[in-house]
């Protein structure tokens, strides 16, 4: 009985999907072919915690999976959606969701599909990550058998600790080279500059010692030539530690996945905003066209409200994203743009209504060219902040109670904070400035302080991981703030313990 009912459900979903495809085309969305897999809740939760349908094993995924499961059990059917950046686009529908929710998710997915196909930051990402990840999962499993789970785990721990510190030019061919499909070749090692003073049987080569020494001095300056934000790549290439082939493979797998997900990290608000913007349009159409009964439409409305709900303790990217897109659409339809309008000091400029109808065109353009940082910087205005009802809250301890109060509602202060936290995808900017610090092949990292300090305990623990990859003392230069004074410090981990050097204090007026 359930078999035939399931078949009936699928038939209905296929009909809805065909119709959505039709209207998606009419609206001008440009999508990859879309595939939907209807899967059990457990598998859905697994994909959400592993980021991919099949991925390598690690305790952190187990932790996230358990968290997801608990949340799922308590929440009672949130309309989960997972869509993967691939061609054809693959998305998952949770078997237990009722029909109107499935349709909502499908409509939402088409928005993501269009976004990932057209946003320039996705232009160079690998669309074959699913196959690649499942292959690398197999290889890592073999490494576990061969070298032991603990050994592999330690390496993954360390790799994950620095996986955000990558830099891949998303517009360049090199960023999409399939790197982990095959075990990695060892990259060129820095070696000692004196190595080729001797040929293989130990004879002195033609270069004089002085020549080599000068070369070495030059070389020393060059590593890295410029501060290198790609900490992970740098370590893989230049670590004094002799990585085994399999170790480099593990590092590459994690690095490649991090690169793969980078565009998604950079466009979370836009991507969700765009998808929400479109599911709202598409769902209205589906209702008009008779694909949803009034009850089903009511059910959808209920869930849509949950997706866009105000979270009193956190930023809702769906809400902020959709409000921003709606605001762009509105302004460009009304003619609230252009140098003259921008320059105008009149508060009435927000009431301009020239009915120029440029809204659609503009949002399609923005979805192509922007990422969150620039998107919010350019388009988040007082209207968006007010419509999203954003505020900054703080916490205070009152006796035995911690109290959260609204501290700021001023839109430009809020925008400032949001834009700053979206800079560099929310990852502190830390660059390798010296791979041969003190002439002892020690690693020197510098945090480019921009007003936000690092969490010290996390910094220390991460440094330990860096040490395990570099095998020699590692240094981190950062800033500590105490009241009005900012102190530049150098935190060092040498494999046994930490030390901290004060590099100078600056007191603000």
């Amino acid at each position, binding site marked *: 009985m359930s078999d035939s009912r*399931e078949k009936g459900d699928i038939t209905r*979903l*296929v009909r809805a999907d065909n119709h959505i495809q039709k209207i998606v085309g009419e609206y001008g969305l440009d999508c990859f*072919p879309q595939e*939907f*897999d*209807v*899967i*059990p809740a*457990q*598998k859905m*939760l*697994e994909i959400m915690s*592993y980021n991919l349908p099949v991925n390598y*094993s*690690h*305790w*952190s995924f*187990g*932790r996230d999976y358990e968290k997801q499961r608990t949340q799922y059990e308590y929440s009672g059917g949130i309309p989960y959606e997972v869509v993967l950046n691939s061609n054809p686009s693959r998305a998952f529908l949770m*078997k237990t969701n009722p029909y109107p929710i499935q349709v909502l998710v499908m409509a939402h997915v088409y928005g993501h599909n269009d976004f990932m196909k057209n946003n320039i930051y996705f232009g160079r990402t690998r669309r074959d990550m699913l196959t690649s990840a499942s292959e690398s999962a197999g290889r890592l499993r073999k490494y576990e058998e061969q070298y032991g*789970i603990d050994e592999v*785990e330690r390496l993954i721990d360390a790799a994950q*600790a*620095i996986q*955000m510190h990558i830099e891949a030019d998303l517009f360049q061919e090199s960023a999409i080279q399939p790197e982990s499909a095959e075990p990695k070749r060892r990259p060129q090692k820095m070696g000692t500059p004196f190595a080729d003073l001797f040929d293989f049987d130990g004879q002195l080569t033609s270069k004089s010692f002085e020549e080599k020494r000068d070369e070495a001095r030059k070389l020393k300056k060059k590593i890295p030539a410029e501060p290198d934000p790609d900490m992970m790549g740098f370590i893989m290439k230049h670590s004094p530690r002799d990585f085994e082939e399999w170790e480099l493979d593990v590092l590459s797998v994690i690095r490649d996945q991090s690169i793969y997900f980078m565009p998604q990290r950079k466009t979370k608000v836009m991507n969700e905003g765009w998808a929400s913007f479109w599911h709202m349009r598409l769902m209205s159409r589906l209702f008009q066209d008779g694909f949803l009964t009034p009850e089903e439409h009511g059910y959808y409305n209920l869930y849509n409200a949950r997706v866009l709900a*105000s*979270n*009193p*303790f*956190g*930023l809702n990217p769906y*809400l902020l994203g959709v409000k921003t897109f709606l605001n762009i659409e509105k302004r460009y339809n009304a003619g609230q743009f252009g140098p003259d309008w921008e320059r105008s000091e009149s508060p009435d400029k927000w009431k301009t209504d020239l009915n120029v109808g440029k809204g659609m065109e503009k949002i399609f353009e923005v979805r192509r060219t922007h990422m969150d940082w620039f998107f919010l910087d350019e388009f988040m205005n007082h209207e968006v902040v007010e419509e999203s009802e*954003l*505020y*900054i809250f*703080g*916490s*205070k*301890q009152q*006796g*035995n*109670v*911690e109290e*959260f*109060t*609204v*501290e700021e*509602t001023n839109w430009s202060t809020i925008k400032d904070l949001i834009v700053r936290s979206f800079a560099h995808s*929310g*990852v*502190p900017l830390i660059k390798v400035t010296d791979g041969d610090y003190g002439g002892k092949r020690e690693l020197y990292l510098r*945090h480019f302080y921009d007003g*936000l300090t*690092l*969490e*010290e305990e*996390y910094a220390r*623990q*991460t440094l330990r991981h860096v040490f395990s990859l570099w095998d020699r003392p590692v240094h981190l230069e950062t800033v500590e703030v105490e009241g009005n004074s900012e102190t530049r410090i150098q935190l060092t981990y040498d494999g046994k313990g930490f030390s901290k050097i004060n590099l100078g204090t600056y007191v603000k007026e």
Partner: protein
Amino acid sequence: MTVRQMDWDFSKRGQEDVARHQKKIKDSIRENIADVISEESIISRKKGQTVKIPIRGIKSYQFIYGKRKGGGEGGGGYGLGHGKKDKGDVIGRRPAPNGEGDGPGKGGKPADAAGEDYMETEVDIEELIQMMMDDLQLPDLRKKEIAETVVPSGWSFEDVEKHGLKPNLDKKRSFKNAIKRAADSVSKLAEKTGKPMDVCQKALNKFKGDYQKALELLQTENPEAELEEQEDKLKPFIQHGDLRYRVPKENTESHSNAVILAMMDVSGSMSTTKKYLARSFFFWMVEFLKHKYRNVEIRFIAHTSEAKLVDEDEFFHKGESGGTICASAYDLACQLIDTDYPPAKWNIYAFHFSDGEDWDPAKTMLSVKRLMEKAPNMVGYGEIRTEVAYGQQLMRNFEESFSLERYTSYRDSDFEYYLAQRAELPLAGVILKNKGHVYPALKVFFSKEKRV
């Protein structure tokens, strides 16, 4: 078709990694056992063998931004939120993560919004005990080998022998033997001579049970004539071979009893926090001893300037006014041992908690000495100094009177303990300054016992 049903094989990976994570949590509990076991939720659990305790989640460390200091005193983090609100509106409250208050185990609730990454984990008390046993290296406790004490329980005569002392003659048994032998002889005589049973009986009676003489008579021409006057009733004539003597035997009994004599100063200076440390300590002490003895009892001796037996609730929760004479508690403990817990049958563990104040330490030392003479397994004294110690420290008197040596813990230099220099003296002293000291205190107490 673009929509399809995928009945994925349930991959085991999710479950496997959940198990890997769980193992890491267990390791973390093991590492932080001192903090874990002093969690209030453990001793206040309703029932059952599992408890929920907050432990710090296993984190994935990365370089992240720190929490910006919020405004005002004790400012915590800050964050962004949505809602129609004005400046100054309160959007939420929760118990403070690190309450300044005196109560233990406050806060530490799993954080929702912007707080610490704590998670509630269910742990089996038994599992915690096993972890502690491993750490304490108390294999004798770990194996749950019940310790038994054998004591004499009087005399009994269950066996008998053919030789013995006259006083131990078993008359009844000897008599029975004689009857049995007489009956046997009659049957044999009847068989051999073909005479009726009553004639044989008469013959036997005539010769006072002598089988040979009876046989000879019966084999003559007309024995009936000679036997007319004899009775034909069976008469036992006890002979030497019939005698049985009792064997005296000494009896023994096995016991597996332990009693904890929990003593505590309950005068005003002992705050809730201080009492909590004692409570946590006694809780685990009972759990430990349950692994060693079949029967574990705990008696609560509360004292101010006088000591009295109270129930658990009163012991831990009710304060009293009055002075402080610790000797009173030790005296009552001695008295209890005399009346209820003879050391021959009971393993005695006495432990006294105070904050160091005592109006008559000299007298207390005499009382402690008397207690030590009662052959207890272990005696411990715990001085609770949750505040900076000023005033009297009874530990000093222990140190002098029993030549205790002062040590500090290798793991936590803040933890001090005192052990008797004489290895065989089952006495230990500990100083508890915070919750984290409960565990090392237990460790000292039980390790010392092991060495005694």
